[in-house]
C-alpha cells in the first residue's frame, strides 16, 4: 500500500510537472512584428501583393512576411530571410542592391543585398512616437501656429492605436530618399536611406485624411493615388504633395505611365488618361466592371493594366484605349513588374505568374 501511494504521488508529481511545463511553454504569444517569417514551399503560390525589379532580380512580397526572389525570370524562387511575419504590401528597389518593403503594422524593411535578407527599420509601435515627437517639436518651435496642435493630436491618436498602421506603398528616388504611404494620410519619408523616418502629413493636400493607396513616379513626376478620387503630385516649389483636379470620386488604386501619358486607375474599371501631367483627364473605356489594381509599362513602352479578377489590358498605343488580352486562366493581380523584353511578372492572391509579351 505504501509503495502504491508513493507510486501514485510520483505519478501525480510527474503529471503536474509536465502540465506545468506545458503551460509555461505554451501560449507565449509572439507578435507578427517579432516572429520571423517561416520558410514555406507554398509561399510562391500564396497571396503576394507586389513585385519589383532589383537589377536583373525579381523580388516579390506578400502575406505572412513572405519575400521571394528569382534570378531566372520567375521560374524559380528563393525565400528571403525576413525578421517579421506581418503581411507585406509593397516593395521597391531604387538600385539593384538597395530596396525597401512596407506592410501592415507599419513595418518598413530594408535590404542591401538585392532582397536576399532584410532588416527592420521601423514598425507600427514606433511610428506614433515619431509622429508625435516630430509635431511636438514643430509646435514648440511655432506655438502660434494652431495647425501643429492638430498634428500633435493626430500623433497622439497614432500612439494610442498602437501598431495598427497599414503602410500600403513605398517608393524610393535613390538609395537615400524615399517615401512610405498608408491609411488615413499616413506618410513617412527619409533622407538617409531609412535610418530615420519623419512624418509628412502636413505636406499633403488631404484635409479629410483619406487613405493613400499608392505612390509612384511617372517620368520625373511623383504621384500619390488615394481614396475618394484623391490624386496628389509632388510640387518641388511648394515642397508638398499638391492636389490635382480629379475626374472621378471613387478610389484610385494607382497611377502608371510614361512622360506625356499619365493613367490613373481604380475602382470598377475606371481608368482616366491625362496628357498634361494630371491637369486634365479623359476617361478611357475598359469595358470591365471590376477594379483595376495594377499597372506597368513594358520594355517596348506599351502600358498594361490588370484587374482584381485577373484581366490583362494592353494600351492600344495611340493612347485612345485598352484591349483585353486573352489569357489561359485568370488569377487576381495585385502587383506587376517588367522583366526583360519578353515578359511581365504578375503577383496576386494565387501567387506568381508570368505573362509573355508577343
Amino acid at each position, binding site marked *: 500500500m505504501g509503495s502504491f501511494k508513493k507510486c501514485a504521488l510520483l505519478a501525480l508529481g510527474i503529471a503536474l510537472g509536465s502540465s506545468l511545463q506545458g503551460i509555461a511553454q505554451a501560449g507565449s504569444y509572439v507578435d507578427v512584428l517579432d516572429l520571423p517569417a517561416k520558410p*514555406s*514551399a507554398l509561399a510562391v503560390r500564396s497571396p503576394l501583393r507586389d513585385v519589383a525589379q532589383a537589377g536583373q532580380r525579381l523580388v516579390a512580397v506578400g502575406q505572412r512576411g513572405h519575400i521571394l526572389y528569382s534570378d531566372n525570370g520567375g521560374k524559380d524562387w528563393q525565400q528571403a530571410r525576413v525578421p517579421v511575419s506581418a503581411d507585406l504590401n509593397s516593395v521597391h528597389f531604387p538600385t539593384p542592391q538597395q530596396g525597401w518593403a512596407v506592410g501592415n503594422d507599419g513595418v518598413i524593411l530594408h535590404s542591401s543585398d538585392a532582397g536576399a535578407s532584410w532588416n527592420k527599420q521601423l514598425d507600427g509601435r514606433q511610428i506614433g512616437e515619431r509622429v508625435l515627437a516630430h509635431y511636438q517639436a514643430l509646435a514648440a518651435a511655432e506655438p502660434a501656429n494652431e495647425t501643429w496642435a492638430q498634428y500633435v493630436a493626430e500623433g497622439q491618436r497614432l500612439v494610442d492605436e498602437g501598431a495598427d498602421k497599414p503602410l500600403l506603398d513605398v517608393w524610393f528616388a535613390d538609395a537615400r530618399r524615399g517615401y512610405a504611404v498608408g491609411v488615413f494620410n499616413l506618410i513617412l519619408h527619409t533622407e538617409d536611406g531609412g535610418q530615420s523616418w519623419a512624418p509628412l502629413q502636413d505636406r499633403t493636400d488631404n484635409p479629410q485624411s483619406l487613405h493613400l493607396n499608392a505612390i509612384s513616379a511617372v517620368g520625373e513626376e511623383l504621384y500619390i493615388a488615394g481614396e475618394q478620387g484623391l490624386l496628389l503630385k509632388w510640387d518641388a516649389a511648394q515642397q508638398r504633395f499638391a492636389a490635382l483636379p480629379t475626374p472621378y470620386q471613387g478610389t484610385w*488604386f494607382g497611377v502608371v505611365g510614361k512622360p506625356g501619358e499619365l493613367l490613373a486607375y481604380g*475602382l470598377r474599371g475606371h481608368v482616366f488618361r491625362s496628357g498634361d501631367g494630371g491637369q486634365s483627364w479623359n476617361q478611357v473605356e475598359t469595358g470591365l466592371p471590376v*477594379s483595376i*489594381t495594377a499597372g506597368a509599362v513594358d520594355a517596348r513602352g506599351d502600358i498594361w493594366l490588370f484587374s482584381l479578377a485577373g484581366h490583362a489590358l494592353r494600351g492600344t498605343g495611340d493612347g485612345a484605349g485598352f484591349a483585353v488580352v486573352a489569357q489561359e486562366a485568370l488569377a487576381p493581380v495585385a502587383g506587376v513588374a517588367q522583366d526583360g523584353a519578353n515578359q511581365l511578372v504578375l503577383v496576386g492572391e494565387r501567387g506568381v505568374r508570368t505573362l509573355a509579351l508577343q
Partner: protein
Amino acid sequence: MANIKQDTMPVIRDLRDFDQRSGNVLERLVFNYRPLFVVCMVLVTLVLGYMALTRLELRPSFEKMIPQSQPYIQNFLENRKSLRGLGNSVRVVVENTQGDIFDPEYLDVLKQINDELFLAQGVDRAWMKSLWSPAVRWTEVTEEGFQGGTVMPDNYAGAPADIEQLRQNINRAGIVGSLVAKDLKSSMLIVPLLDQDSATGRGIDYHQFSRMLEEKLRVKYEFAGDAKAAASGEEGSGKYKIRVIGFAKLMGDLIDGLIQVMMFFALAVVTSLVIIYLYTRCVRSTLLVVFCSLTAVVWQLGIVAWLGYAIDPYSILVPFLIFAIGVSHAAQKMNGIMQDIGRGTHKLIAARYTFRRLFVAGVTALLADAVGFAVLMLIDIPVIQDLAITASIGVAVLIFTSLLLMPVALSYIGVGRKAAERAMRIDTNAADHRGFGKLWDMLDLFTTRKWATGAVLVATLMGVGGFLVSLNLKIGDLDSGAPELREDSRYNRDNAYITGHYALSSDTFAVMIKTAPEGCLNYQTLVLADRLAWELQQHPGVQTTVSLVNAVRQITAGTFEGNPKMNSIQRNQDMLNYAAQQASVNAPELFNTDCSVMPVIAFLKDHKAETLDEVVAIADKFAQENSTPERQFLLAAGSAGIEAATNIVVREANRTMLLFVYLAVTVFCLFTFRSWRATLVALLPLVLTSVLCEALMVAMGIGVKVATLPVIALGVGIGVDYALYLLSVQLHYQRKGMSLSDSYENAVAFTGRVVGLVGITLAAGVVGWAWSPIKFQADMGILLTFMFLWNMLGALILIPALSYFLLPDKRSGAVAAKQVETASTQAQAQVNPQIHPKFEACAEGGLLKNQR
C-alpha cells in the same frame, strides 16, 4: 482403427427399461417434465418474438461508431453544438447533363427541388442555401459603398436578359466552386437539418429522409418517375442528375444496406439447410436443427430489443454468428442421437444420453466462443461493446436452445431410420479406412516425420511471408469517399462527382479554438488561427483551410474598397467586430453564437491513415505550443478529425485486443490440456491464421478499422474450438499410451466431421456478407470466412504436424501418467465416439459417473 469402441451406454429399446431418475438434476428437470419444458420454451419464444417484432429498430448511430472517451472525441462532443459548419447537413447537386445551369428549364427544375426540400420535414429552412435562396447574395464595392442583392434576379422570368443577369450575379457573388460547379453544369443546394424536428420533437429519421430524397427528387427528376430504375443504383440517363451527399443520406443508405443484409440471413439459413441435410440425409432433423437455431436468433433479438439495443451495421453480425454456432451445436446433438437411435435405443433415451454426453462439453465450447466476444468489451467503441454484449446474450441463449431444446425436441420427433442407419454406416466405413476413413488416413500422414516437417516448413514459410506482408497493414480506411459504403456505390460516385466539380472535399479536419465569449474576435486569436491554418496548409494532403480568418480578411479588404493589400487581419478591434458581424450573416458556420468557439477547418485530399496522422501531428504540436487556459486549441472535429481519433483508438485496441484474446485462449488451453506443449500445438495454427488474415487484409486493401477489429478476436475465439475438439481427444489417447499416429487418427475420426461441419456452417453463415452493399460488412464477411475455414484447415493439418515435434510419443505418455489417469477414477480403455471430445475428461468424471 480397430480401437474405436462402442458406446458404453446400454442400448435400451423400451422406455420402461429406462430409469427415469438417472441423470443429473438438470437432465431430470428437463426430460421428466418435457411437456412443461416445451410449453415454457414456446411461451418464451412467443414473448421474445413479439418483442423482436415490435421493438427492434434499425438504427445506425453515429455516436456509437466513435470512441467516446478518446480525448479528441470528447473535445468534439463537448463543442459539437457550436460547430454549425460541421453540423448535420445534406448537399444536393442538380446536374444538367445536356447543357449548363443557364438553362431556363434547368432553373425551373432547380426551383421545384428547392421548394420540395424547403418544405421537407427536418430541414432547418432558415439556413438552407441554393441559387433560389434569398440568403444567397452578391455584394460589390462601389463608389457609394457596398451594394448587393440576391443572386437570383428579383423578377426572374426566364428571359435571356434574366439569365445574363444571373450569370453576372453568380460571378459577383463568388460562388463558383461552392454553390455552383466549376464547370457550371450543376449547382448545389445546401440543406442543413434540425437536430430535433420542431413538429415531433424527435430526432430526424434518416431512413425516412433518405427515402424522401430518393422518391421525391431522384425518382421524379433523374428517372422520370421510374422507381425501379432508380432502385438499381445506376445513374439515370435523362437530362438531370440528382446527386446527394451528407450524413443523413449516408445513414439512409446504410439502413437500406442493412435491410439488404438481412436478406442474406435467408441465404445463410438455406445454406445451412443444405449443409445439414448433406451431413444427415434426414429431412426432419435438418429442419429441427435449423428451427432450433432460428429460435436462438429470435430469443437473442427479443432480448436485445427488450434491453433497448438497436440493430446497427455491426451488431447485425450477431444473429448470423449465433445462428451458425447454434447450427453446429444442434447438429452435433442430432448426430449423437442419430447414432444411438441407429443402434436401436429409444428416441427419448437417445436424447437423454446425448444430453449427458454433450451438455457440459457444449457449455464449455460456448464459453470458449464467449472469450472471443468478451475481449471485445475492452475496445472503447460503443458499437463493438454492443456487439460483445449482444453476442454474449446470444451465446447464453444457445445453452437453452441448442443444448436443451434441441435434444428435447428430438426426443419427440426422433430421426429418420434410414438416416440413422447411414450414420452408423459412415462410422463403420471410417473405421475400416473407407469413405471418410481415407481422408482421416491422409491427415494421419502428418504425424509422420516427412509430412510433419513439410507441413511445419510450409506453415513457417507462410507465416514468415504473411508476417512480412502484414507489416504493410494500414490503419483506417484506404479508399476515398464514405468508407462505410463501397467505392462504386451511388453515394460514393456522387461524392466523387461533387469533390471533382466543387472546390471543397468532404474530408474535413477541424481544430476547435475555444476562448471566453467574444474571444474569437480577439486579434491574437485570429492571428493564431491564421498561423495554425498556414501550418496545416504546409501538408501536401491539405487542399485548403477555412476559418473565420478567411472571412475577416475578405471583409476587411471589402471595407477598403476591395484593395487586395488590405486582405489582412487588422489590430483595430472595431474593424474586427465589424468583420465578425458581417461574417455572422455571410458565413455563420465559422463561429458560434457567443463567439467562444471557432473551428479551423482543413479540407483533406484523402482520409488515409498517414495523412490523418501527419495532420494530427501538425495540429497537436501547434496546440501544445499555443494553448493557454484562456485560449485552447482542441483537436479534433470534422469527418477526418473523428476518423483520426478512431484510428488512434483502433491502433491501440488492435494490439491490446490481440494480446488479451491470446492471453485468454492460452489460459483456456492450459487449463484444458494442462500441458504447455499441447497449448503451443493448439495456438500456433491460430497465430498463423491471424498473421495470414492480416496479410490478406493487406492484399485486399482492407485497413484495420472498427469493423475489422472484432474479426481477429472472433476468429481466434471461435477458432480455438477446433483445436480443443481435436487435441483433447488426441491427448486423451496419447495419455493412455497410444502412439501419436493412432491417437490422432482416432481423434480425427471422432471429430474430423464435427470440425468440418463447424467450419463450413460458420463460414456459410457469414460468407454472404461479401456481397453486402456496406463495405465494412463485406470486409468482415470475407475475413471471417477466411478465418473460419483456414482455422479448420490449420487445425486438421498443423495439429498432427506440430504434435509430431511437440508431443512425441514418450513425452505425452509421461504427461498422461502425471495427470489424467491418476485423476480419473474410471480408467477405461474405451472411448465414447459421440462424446464431445473437447471435454471428454470432464464427461468421464462427471456425466458418466452420474449415469452409473
